[in-house]
């Protein structure tokens, strides 16, 4: 599904160079649920942005479903972001003037879907995250947890190959975080591949695999023995 080989990312700010990613090798297979952990500044977001085709590495290779993404142009990357990747941000990143429904429809507009199809799929996605009763609300009329659920519905609506989430619970209280993790687990049960950044061990233990970063390098990569199941029933 995802294969990254000796990936390097260097930020240059004037004379100062920051090596945000150093020789990263990582493979994520279909159906996995991976948490990426590490201290602040260790390169987690940098990796996620590259995986999400929002940014490019300085060197190394990135294969998404066997396609070498590093060789694609801007338009091709936009198409991948649109169809193959669902991205969930810490800050929700909803468009404030659009309703929940319209926010969820956005990726389909760029995919060129017809109005009716968009409506149906967007309503289905909102239903999946338990927000059928909030479809016509504006983002500022929703709680943090609800906003993040709209963002998840939006990320899922074009049925992407992979769901990327950069600290999705970072702005949420523990109850909302728990709800979001429940949604992720349900989606993963249905076969959605998820890579998620978090610095909370408690949250990370809801996933099946934890990759830990330090100073731009992977220091550990372990499967979770006994993931916490939302609703109590541990696997």
């Amino acid at each position, binding site marked *: 599904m995802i294969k990254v080989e000796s990936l390097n990312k260097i930020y240059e700010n004037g004379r100062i160079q920051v090596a945000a990613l150093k020789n990263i090798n990582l493979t994520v297979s279909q159906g996995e649920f991976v948490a990426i952990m590490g201290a602040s500044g260790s390169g987690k977001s940098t990796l996620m942005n590259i995986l999400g085709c*929002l940014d490019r590495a300085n060197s190394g290779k990135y294969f998404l479903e066997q396609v070498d993404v590093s060789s694609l142009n801007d338009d091709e990357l936009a198409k991948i972001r649109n169809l193959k990747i669902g991205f969930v941000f810490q800050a929700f990143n909803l468009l404030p003037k659009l309703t929940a429904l319209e926010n969820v429809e956005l990726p389909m507009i760029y995919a060129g879907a017809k109005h009716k199809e968009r409506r149906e799929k967007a309503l289905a996605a909102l239903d999946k995250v338990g927000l059928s009763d909030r479809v016509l609300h504006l983002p500022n009329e929703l709680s943090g947890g609800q906003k993040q659920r709209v963002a998840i519905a939006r990320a899922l609506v074009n049925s992407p190959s992979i769901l990327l989430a950069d600290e999705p619970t970072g702005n949420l209280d523990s109850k909302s975080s728990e709800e979001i993790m429940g949604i992720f687990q349900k989606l993963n049960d249905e076969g959605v591949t998820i890579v998620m950044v978090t610095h909370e061990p408690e949250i990370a233990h809801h996933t099946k695999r934890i990759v830990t970063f330090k100073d731009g390098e992977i220091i550990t990569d372990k499967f979770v023995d006994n993931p916490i199941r939302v609703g109590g029933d541990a696997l």
Partner: protein
Amino acid sequence: MNIFESLKSALRNLMSNKMRSFLTMLGIIIGIASVIMITSIGAGSRAAITSEFDKLGVGLLTIQMKGSNDAKLRDFLTLDDVELIKKHPEVKNVTPYFEAWGASIKLKNPKEEKSGYIIGINEEYRFMVPPDLLYGRFIIESDCKAKSKVVVIDEVLAEKVFGRKDVVGETITVRLWRGNLKFTVIGVTKNSNAALESIMGAEMPSALYMPIQTVMDIYLVDYLDYIYVSVKDPEKIDQTAIELNKMLEMKHRNEDAYYIRSLMDEIEMINQVLGYITAFISFVAGISLFVGGIGVMNIMLVTVTERTREIGIRKSLGAKNKDIRKQFLIEAVILTVIGGIIGIIAGFLGGSLVGMLMDVTPKVSLFSILVTVGVSSLVGIIAGVYPANKAAKLDPIEALRYE
């Protein structure tokens, strides 16, 4: 993203900031409104002038000697020339025309006078410029042959001298350079100065129409100011003018001594002047359109900066550079096109108002509307391209990080 979605989203954005959108449009509105107003008034007055000239007929020629410094006595137009011109087969009517200023007409109280001018013409004049006769008749052939001391005056003068209008057969006294002369009134016309007086707001001198021979005797001259010619076929008027000129040059044995103008030439000249004025004012209005376009560009740049984050979000969801470019370009074009449409309506209303004051019916052609809409969309595209490109080129990560 199809065009309908783009339009909807652009309209929505503009509506969410109505005041700003309106103020941005204002420059375009004012520019377009003034262009429409000026061109509609211009076209309206042109049509009015043309129809005014049409009443006089299109088949009229004016012959005049060029008053250059080396003009010789033999070049002057005379009554013999009138006879010569009559012989041309294309000529319908010919009249000599001699105008003399400085006449004073004695009023009821002989101590009072009204200024006037004498026009000498022949019996054919009345077929060429039909007079609005109220009483009596106009100059006829026997008046000319007999050099009769007769005159045709207008109702205003009749009222001043006699206190009534039907004064055919009465005698008026006119003070001229050689003293007081008496003339018998043979006809009274409507006030010939009505239009002029209403514009100038003052009394104009009175015209006294007399037989040309009578006038020449009084002034002891044998040359004319003009010869007016009406032709049988207005289509051939240019050719006829050339031939008449040749006849005159042969007779006077000179070259390039006469102007021969048709009324069409005068209409064209007036239209040309009006056209220049319209073009000049339109140019000034065009500058305000240009300034309006800069206003649109400025606001679009502000909008792009304000919505950097939105651009990042849209890109993260799969918007291509061209989708973003289209979105902002459409917003700019909608601003200018709606501004243009409001401007057309405002210009039409303003034109009607000014037209009412100037007594002109403004004319808005479909062509000018199409051009205006075209120009305003063009202004939108030009003003929008740079900001839209700036938006499209934003790096998604940088844009998402923007606060």
